């Protein structure tokens, strides 16, 4: 991983970086696609909590065009959307690269699928 589900939850936590600190921008992402088991209950439950534009932009950054720009209403979720959501959230793994804070430019490296969210001492609140 990092899958986009995790990316949708991450924010920069450098001392004083409190606004525009999410989503983190990918830099040089190396991705791998891995199949994951489809579970519509999970997707329907998680749907309202998604930061939609962050998810769409991140997916486009990674070369995926399947999600609509606007988040559909819950009543209008069809199978096709669920399958696209499943793929984007759970099957695209960023294995290596960087995530950069749009506000303070702090770099969070990703290596072997593990993002490094540790801060240097002077960056901790």
């Amino acid at each position, binding site marked *: *991983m*990092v*899958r986009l*589900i*995790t990316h949708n*939850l*991450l*924010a*920069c*936590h450098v001392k004083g970086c409190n606004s525009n600190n*999410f989503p983190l921008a990918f830099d040089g992402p190396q991705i791998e696609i*891995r199949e*994951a*088991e*489809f*579970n519509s*209950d*999970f*997707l*329907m*439950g*998680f*749907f309202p*909590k998604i*930061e939609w534009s962050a998810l769409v932009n991140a997916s486009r950054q990674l070369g995926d065009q399947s999600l609509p720009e606007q988040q559909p209403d819950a009543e209008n979720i069809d199978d096709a959307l669920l399958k696209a959501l499943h793929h984007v959230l759970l099957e695209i*793994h960023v294995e290596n690269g960087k995530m950069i804070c749009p506000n303070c430019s702090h770099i*969070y490296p990703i290596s*072997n*699928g*593990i*993002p*490094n*969210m*540790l*801060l240097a001492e002077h960056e*901790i609140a």
Partner: protein
Amino acid sequence: MSSTTLAPAPIEDDPEAHEKLHVHKIYDQIAPHFSSTRYKPWPIIADFIASLPPGSVGLDSGTGNGKYLPLPLDRPNSIWTIGLDRSRNLLQIAQNAGGKRREVVWGDALEAGWRLGVFDYAISIATIHHLATPTRRRMAIETLLRCISPSNGRLLVYVWAVEQDHLSKRVLPSTADGHITKGQDIFVPWVLSQPSSKPLDHQAPEGGEPKVFNRYYHMFASGELEGLAREAAAVLDLEVISKPSSASDRRVRQGIEIVRSGWERSNWYMELKRWQI
């Protein structure tokens, strides 16, 4: 196997340096061996996870080898738990917990690299007892409370207790018959027997002599965990009561409810729920 009387662990230097030496460095060295001894989920934790509705996403702060990431086993893809740990070597094991690719993050339990209130739940199992000062242990609970939903986020915390049962084989350094009212800082040895461990790349395999690592723990006394939660709530301006039935005036009220707390198998545990009206 006979019991071990544990050595007190005075914290003389800076708490972060103390944790680096007596916690982080050790876990990185013992990771595979440690992981092989941590495989059975505890019942209250398993029940907590089983009660989470489909679509829930949560944080396992101090995931270690990731043994809770695959739960619940009867509906494995209906919730997602993201594992955070300070030990990269343990994370490499957690990444494949239960034979599937998990979401793991290399981070610190005191730091909140998450959107505020983003998680439905968080668990902190045998983690904050490695923090060297009461302030840091309180801050860890603040961090956990900040990352769960202010309207209904749930939190489960487990820490080692001063009161150990006969199965734990650990004896604390104060009198065996005295009632211990204060938490204690101690070292708990880990014996790494070389033949059975798989050395990591940077670790040179040694000859027959078993290596002993002294891990730092703060053992909690009765009521101490709850006390920390109350202090953390005060810092975050949260009331510590059950959710009131209706707002008495137009201001927004926020709080935490201590759903349950107790002692189980040499641990103190506490379950909290955030509310907002």
